[in-house]
């Protein structure tokens, strides 16, 4: 609970609370003022209501120190993997491999993160799970679409589990400039990527004219992209004081996180398009599934972690 005595953490939490109150007020006024509230305004209200819950859960997890955060991200990985596998083209022969992926590989990855075993958690899925799952699939003896099936399970594990686990792995970083500031780094990463997402959405809705990737997602526009990334960089630089970095370094890290977050959203949109669905699920009202919410985080986390690790000299 040392975070409760951390002025940086408290200040930022207060700012988020203020931001949520403001957003809720704006959305409610919009719903009240507009005579016939359309789907966009209803969805905006649902999204903001869900943000309250997400912020509360995330704050509680951070306050518990490591354990709560590893547990929360582990559960998020399981939910995301479940959504991914539901859409994946797996067959009858993949059942046992999937069982291993859900109940052995995923928990093991988070246990390794919790044990701060960087040498293991950074290679367990790309090396051992990759080989094991592939072999487990082949041993089931189903050869039709073998490559496609094995590849999809491994891809799901990489994105939903391996990449996402780099977010709570920030808690394990140690270095000369870091004194138990892992929780602040995690907060920084999550806030910056989500801030970027929110401003991409808002700028896209307000000013979006030119689609950035029309074949993948008509909702993603150059205006939204520019607005989201710019807002994230300014925001990241503005809260440099929660990180061990200078404002310029914080801005660069925020830029990396926002850019990776954007391409993450693009890649997972392509997956949805390929499978012919609009959302991955219905877990989070207004947002869709877990994977719809954390698509940007999965791509931003590993890059942000490695850059931070390099900067703090851990």
């Amino acid at each position: 609970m040392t975070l409760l005595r951390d002025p940086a953490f408290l200040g930022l939490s207060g700012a988020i609370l203020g931001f949520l109150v403001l957003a809720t007020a704006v959305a409610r006024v919009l719903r009240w003022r507009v005579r016939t509230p359309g789907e966009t305004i209803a969805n905006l209200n649902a999204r903001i209501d869900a943000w309250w819950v997400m912020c509360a859960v995330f704050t509680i997890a951070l306050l518990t120190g490591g354990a709560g955060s590893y547990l929360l991200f582990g559960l998020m990985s399981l939910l995301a993997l479940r959504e991914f596998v539901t859409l994946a083209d797996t067959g009858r022969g993949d059942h046992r491999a999937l069982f291993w992926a859900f109940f052995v590989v995923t928990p093991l990855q988070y246990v390794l993160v919790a044990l701060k075993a960087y040498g293991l958690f950074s290679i367990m899925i790309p090396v051992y799970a990759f080989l094991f799952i592939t072999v487990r699939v082949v041993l089931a003896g189903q050869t039709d679409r073998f490559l496609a099936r094995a590849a999809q399970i491994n891809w799901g594990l990489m994105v939903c589990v391996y990449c996402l686990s780099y977010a709570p792995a920030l808690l394990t970083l140690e270095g000369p400039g870091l004194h138990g500031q892992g929780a602040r780094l995690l907060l920084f990463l999550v806030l910056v990527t989500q801030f970027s997402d929110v401003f991409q959405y808002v700028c896209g809705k307000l000013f979006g004219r030119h689609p950035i990737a029309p074949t993948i997602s008509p909702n993603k526009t150059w205006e939204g992209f520019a607005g989201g990334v710019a807002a994230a960089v300014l925001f990241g630089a503005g809260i440099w004081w929660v990180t061990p970095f200078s404002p310029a370094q914080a801005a660069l890290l925020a830029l990396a996180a926002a850019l990776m977050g954007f391409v993450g959203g693009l890649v997972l949109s392509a997956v949805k398009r390929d499978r012919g669905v609009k959302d991955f699920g219905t877990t989070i009202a207004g947002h869709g599934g877990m994977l719809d919410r954390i698509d940007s985080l999965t791509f931003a986390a590993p890059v942000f972690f490695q850059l931070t690790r390099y900067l703090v000299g851990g």
Partner: protein
Amino acid sequence: MIDRLLAETTARVARLVAGTHIASATALDDGRQRVYVANHTSHLDFVLLWACLPTRARRVTRPVAARDYWARGAVRRYVAERVFDAVLIDRRPAAGCPPAGPAAVERMLEALGDRRSLILFPEGTRGSADGMGAFRSGLYHLCAARPGLEVVPVHLANLNRILPRGEFLPVPMLSRVTFGLPIRLGAGESRDAFLERARRAVEELAS
């Protein structure tokens, strides 16, 4: 007491693992007697269908299960008879016995009584995910004996991927349970026409 608790717990866990999305065209908690008919691809089917019913309907609804499978072994028997209060019926008669059909319908009518509902998988066995088999005639005889009995078509999607045939450990996956509009046996409707209409009602919910 413990049996009831086990049933509720199993239902909760099944819904959690299967992240079930429920879509319903009708209100089911009005205390009316019904027969829920669904496609059958997994052992999870009856647990999940039962779990997705409104509380009031769940309390009075019993699954119909095959005796030759569910009465074999102490665990299965306990799960079927005590935990889920299943109505066990004979699917096929042993050689030299009279046909099982009439006795099975008799058992179902007895189980319905004047307040219970039933879950029935009229294909008679777990099929493949690709298509449904023909419905057995038990459903028709049941409806003929109880005029006005509501048949609610239910489609269960993706359960065969969560717990396929021959596996005993489930894998988490999102599933969908869709309740359709109830149908009734029409006056003078033939057996085959009614069974085909019921089968199609379930099939149409798939899309």
